[in-house]
């Protein structure tokens, strides 16, 4: 089983991280990071694979993966909009930006549209407080965002 999985190059990346850390149990979080980076999200199969390789119970791996906000157990949409909800953005009306985006695309923060084109994420703080309110459209950060503009940018993003 493991040998067939290993033929997938992506699993090789995950394996490499575990190897680097000597298959120690403490390698779990680092391994989950690598897995998410290569697969985009953490599928059940991937979690089971990691559990086997690190000789950990599946429940433990699942427990850790669900504890940290950074890990996703569902695939991401083609595009992502991350709205920062840090304090600086909050007092500059970021919650309304998020609300408008939720209404426009009919999803809640943390969800993906049915056509899998857009994921909407709210972040704790992206650390660019001086540009508040800020949202990140795929890799592009747009600061001093206006409500109308925030929706428009998202619509542009989905188009391409």
């Amino acid at each position, binding site marked *: 089983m493991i040998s067939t999985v290993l033929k997938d190059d992506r699993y090789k990346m995950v394996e490499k991280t575990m190897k680097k850390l000597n298959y120690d149990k403490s390698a779990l979080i680092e391994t989950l990071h690598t897995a998410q980076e290569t697969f985009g999200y953490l599928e059940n199969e991937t979690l089971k694979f990691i559990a086997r390789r690190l000789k950990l119970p599946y429940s433990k791996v699942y427990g850790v993966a669900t504890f940290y906000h950074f890990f996703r157990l569902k695939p991401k949409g083609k595009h992502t909009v991350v709205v920062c909800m840090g*304090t600086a953005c*909050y007092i500059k009306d970021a919650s309304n930006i998020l609300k408008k985006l939720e209404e426009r695309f009919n999803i809640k923060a943390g969800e993906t549209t049915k056509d899998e084109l857009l994921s909407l994420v709210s972040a704790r703080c992206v650390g660019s407080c001086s540009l*508040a309110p800020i949202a990140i459209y795929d890799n592009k950060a747009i600061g001093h965002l206006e409500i109308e503009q925030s929706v428009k940018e998202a619509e542009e993003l989905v188009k391409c």
Partner: protein
Amino acid sequence: MLNSLEELQELAAQKRDLKRNSHEELRVCIGSSCAALNADTLLKDLKKEVKNNGLDERCKVKGVGCNGLCSEAIMVAHYHKEGDKESIYSKIDTSNTKDFTDMLNSQTNIAQKKCDTSVPFFTKQKKIVLENAGIVDPDDIDDYIAYDGYLALYKALDEMTPQEVINEIKTSGLRGRGGGGYPTGLKWEAVSKVETEQKYIVCNGDEGDPGAFMDRAIMEADPHKIIEGMALAGYSCGATKGFIYVRAEYPIAVQKLNKAIKQARKKGILGNQISDSGFSFDLEVRLGGGAFVCGEATALVTSIEGNRGNPRQKPPHLSDYGLWKSPTVLNNVETFANIAPIIRNGGEWYNKIGTPKSPGTKVFALTGHIKNTGLVEVPMGMSLRELIFEVGGGLPKGRKLKAIQTGGPSGGCIPENLLDVSVDYESLKEIGSIMGSGGLIVMDDTSNMVEVARFFMEFCQSESCGKCVPCRVGTVELTDLLDKFINKIATKSDFELLKNLCEVVQDSSLCGLGQTAPNPVLSTIKYFENEYLEGIKDA
């Protein structure tokens, strides 16, 4: 390989000379706010433009860490050898590249973009932690060495015993910059006295407070300084291994730290028998996963071990029973960044800055309704008023200050009439807030304080790890109660319940997250009670 203090000093002198001869530098800020405005492209374009004009012999173009005035991003500084002068230009974008080559050719200024550096924002700051931010290229270890980098470590290895290093830190009076304010020297001494094979040094770079970005800026601007501070901690405590725990949401910081560690290993600054002494030390970066509770010491250590970040009861303290059950020193990024300057200049020097009980400086992230948003480092003991209205430039036109929030979700709101309080650990605690890690949010009169309190409570609710009941259930109940006030359907007894529940959560939670979660509510009740009363329907 740098095998002795002499070799280090020789390299530093060499690099410094080189700098003097080649004369001018264009320093492009690539900190997070500037990076969000494509500072990377600007840096590339400038390099190309300078080269195309044949100016690259004379002028070096390099990327540097955050120089603080993020609201004026992108910042570019022009450094000139004559008189060691630096002119700073603000709000630069890629269309300005030609202006800079013209300036280099004709030695004129780009007057309309020039920043006035005689204003309080620049003059009232005292830079120790951020001394290299905006000056040194974080990707280049030689640049760090040219500015006295690793001098403290090599000096300590050459001339000082571990106890002498600890004594120096104790003399300095440095206190933990993560917010707790525990004396760093005492922490180190406790670990140094334990006799055991394995000890660890851990750096907390899991900056989770919303509205705070000091540690991020330090890690991105000067990663070598953190490495040097941790190595010095390792030397004085007898630890050979260290971990830097960084938020995965800070990819640039992770990348800079990893690169810096690699460079330091190559030079023999990390590894076996550093500087031909008996001391060996190595570092690894570990990624956090976006859990606020992991900023708590015991939770952080558990997370490095690969578990869910649940905190545990203290004592035993980390100095006896930390990472993998070994004695562990855990300090914040900013604390470690203070170490090298203290060893270099002496504890006495540091102790004279700031107030007697809280010596030194503190880095603050100024955000919210304030003119100069960005990063500032000021001596402790400055009044909040001076910090907000002089260094921060006050509020934008026509806005009136209502409150200042310090310490994030664990802190409190300070009203306008208490602004003359001095910025130090004790004074802020006295008025119901805390120093915290350094996030400082300015709110104007349009802000509703109950909503602000609810915002923080909801944050704590979603970040509660769920291990203890008061925090897990209490934060949910408190959020619901606050909602009643916001929707103006609360009763008088709700108000009593709110106050009681705050006390219960404060007194009975397991870790700092729960114990401090009610602070924003309590401080807003204390200073803005009428806003709560407005939410009561049977008042």
